[in-house]
């Protein structure tokens, strides 16, 4: 289904656990995110810091593959909190996002009570709407498990009505289940919303959030990301791949490659046993970075070896 709760990622390790607790400056946020393998710039570090201190959701927009979704995982690792993910889709509603009653089990319980000859009607009714028959969906989980990191992925895919519902939840951090009462999070979850801008998300929701636009990283930072994700890849190869992707990005492409593609490419080349990149090898593995035929043709017509040579001369 839509929601899964996973523990902190493995790489979180001791560093994160030791430092668990609210960070007291954007710099510390950056350091601790680096410890879990996620490199951020000043803006994003400030955004995360403010999100933690002001209990505001971070609204992430940007091209695909720039690390919007993995930010939530990194925050979970950093805080040693579980990551709870809600994938939005068209037609999602409260019973899929918040909670639902386990009707078959209620029915079973009712039948069993009948067979046992229970006569306490009121007691039986109260039992029917007990916590144990409540099916928790991601949003309710995020309020109950404290602390937690809630990722609302691709919120632009959900309908308007769902946005309004989300806004209500994110401003109060509380939920009322008519049969059970109100559940309020004393420590609100850290919330990350991502959008691909297929639809303009309503302004009221954005106003509630900290807005961060994800740019493609510059050469130095992208290289650092590749190196930290793929420590086994040779320094030379990582540098060349990053330089080439940066060069490709400045071309007019249908789909400019994201950081995710850079990592894929470096990984693919490493799997081929390469420690250095030449134009021929680059062209034969372009499929890892460029996913449109037009783009591949465009890249073929570029002078790739010149880009590589430039990088070699600059290094």
């Amino acid at each position, binding site marked *: 289904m839509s929601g899964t709760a996973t523990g902190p990622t493995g790489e979180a390790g001791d560093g994160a656990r030791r430092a668990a607790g609210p960070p007291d400056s*954007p710099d510390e946020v950056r350091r601790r995110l680096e410890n879990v393998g996620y490199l951020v710039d000043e803006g994003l570090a*400030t955004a995360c810091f403010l999100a933690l201190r002001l209990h505001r959701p971070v609204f992430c927009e*940007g091209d695909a593959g720039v690390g919007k979704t993995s930010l939530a995982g990194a925050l979970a690792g950093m805080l040693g909190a579980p990551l709870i993910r809600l994938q939005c889709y*068209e037609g999602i509603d409260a019973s899929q996002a918040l909670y639902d009653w386990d009707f078959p089990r209620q*029915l079973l319980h009712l039948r069993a009570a*009948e067979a046992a000859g229970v006569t306490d009607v009121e007691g039986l009714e109260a039992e029917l709407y007990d916590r144990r028959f409540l099916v928790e969906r991601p949003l309710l989980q995020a309020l109950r498990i404290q602390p937690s990191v809630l990722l609302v992925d691709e919120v632009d895919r959900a309908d308007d009505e769902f946005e309004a519902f989300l806004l209500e939840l994110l401003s109060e951090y509380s939920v009322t289940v008519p049969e059970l009462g109100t559940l309020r999070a004393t420590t609100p979850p850290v919330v990350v919303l991502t959008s691909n801008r297929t*639809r303009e998300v309503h302004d009221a929701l954005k106003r509630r959030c900290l*807005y961060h*636009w994800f740019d493609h990283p510059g050469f130095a930072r992208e290289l650092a990301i590749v190196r930290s994700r793929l420590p086994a890849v040779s320094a030379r190869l990582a540098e060349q791949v990053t330089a080439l992707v940066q060069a490709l990005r400045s071309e007019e492409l249908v789909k400019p490659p994201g950081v995710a593609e850079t990592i894929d490419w470096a990984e693919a080349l490493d799997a081929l046993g390469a420690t250095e990149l030449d134009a021929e090898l680059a062209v034969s593995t372009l499929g890892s970075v460029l996913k449109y035929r037009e783009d591949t043709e465009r890249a073929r017509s570029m002078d790739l070896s010149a880009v590589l040579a430039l990088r070699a001369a600059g290094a």
Partner: protein
Amino acid sequence: MTAVDGGAAVLVGFARALRAAGLDAGPDRVQTFLRALDVLGPRRRTDVYWAGRLTLCGGQDDLDRYDRVFAGYFGPRAWPEGPRARPLPPAPPPPRLVVRPTDRVPGGAREEDRRPGAAAALASPAEVLRHRDVAALTAAERDQVRRLLAAFSLRGEPRRSARLRPARRGVVDPRRTVRDWLRRGGEPARLRRRARAERPRRVVLLVDVSGSMAAYADALLRFAHAAAHRGPAGSRSATEVFTVGTRLTRVTAALEHRDPDAALAAVAAAVPDWRGGTRLGEMLRAFLDRWGQRGMARGAVVVVLSDGWERGDPALLAAQMRRLHRLAHRVVWANPRKARPGYAPLAAGMAAALPSVDAFVEGHSLAALEHLAAVVRGAEDA
């Protein structure tokens, strides 16, 4: 020696400057901004920059304006490097449209005006003036708007959605069935069923507002307005409207006013490139890069309202039309000049675009626009 030390007043002044630049920096956002600065502690320039950018901006479009206002307000020192995604194409900003009433020139009707059927959708000769007037409308125009409003609900053709709705036949809906039984004390009763719901496809209108389309742009935008406000049950956001010229402008929000005059005035204020040239290929690429490919054009009915006069490279237009055609469910091109006797798609842009167009229709009159609406609905093909 940052100017920030002056305290909250300076920051509120900054927010006011942002509002003047067109950002939606309302009181709630400003309050968040001040709280953010409070949490960040001693105010460094970069902290102010990022705190403001995170709390006062609401979209990618705001970022450039924010940077400019920030530099203007706090002095033009370089702010921390945040490389902009892609440099915008260098487009010299043509003079903005000024809304102001102009006198109508009586008579002097042009050749098109005399064509029967075409007259209703054609603009009056007063619009030959550089600054067109959308504020003052003649009674005849108002009448025409009413007719447009009555005539059009631009519904996309239906498609099956992912959503399941209760239905008489279809697969069994366990949730509703069991809930029903539970209500009867666990007594098995009728099976409830559900089936896939149908929804209209999204409609995307790309309206050419360049000089060569000037006579039609007003009528077409009114059409777009009518189309965006479908019947009472129609949900919003099913129709997206863009204007195309030397810039691409998303005017869906501007068209949200119920009143067509107010909506058109808002569009006039939002669109910077009335009556300029057309760079259809480039604009189409901008549309596809920013909106279309991310999902707006996917499975949608895309309507281009243009005469196909392309100033740029027709090859680029052809390539972008192919791209659009692969994304969209159907591509409809409405060309007001198609109705002229002896018309042949000779304009380089039009010829380049046609292979990727599913339906090529007219768009010069009310009747033609009605036909267009029918094509979009999937009722008939052209």
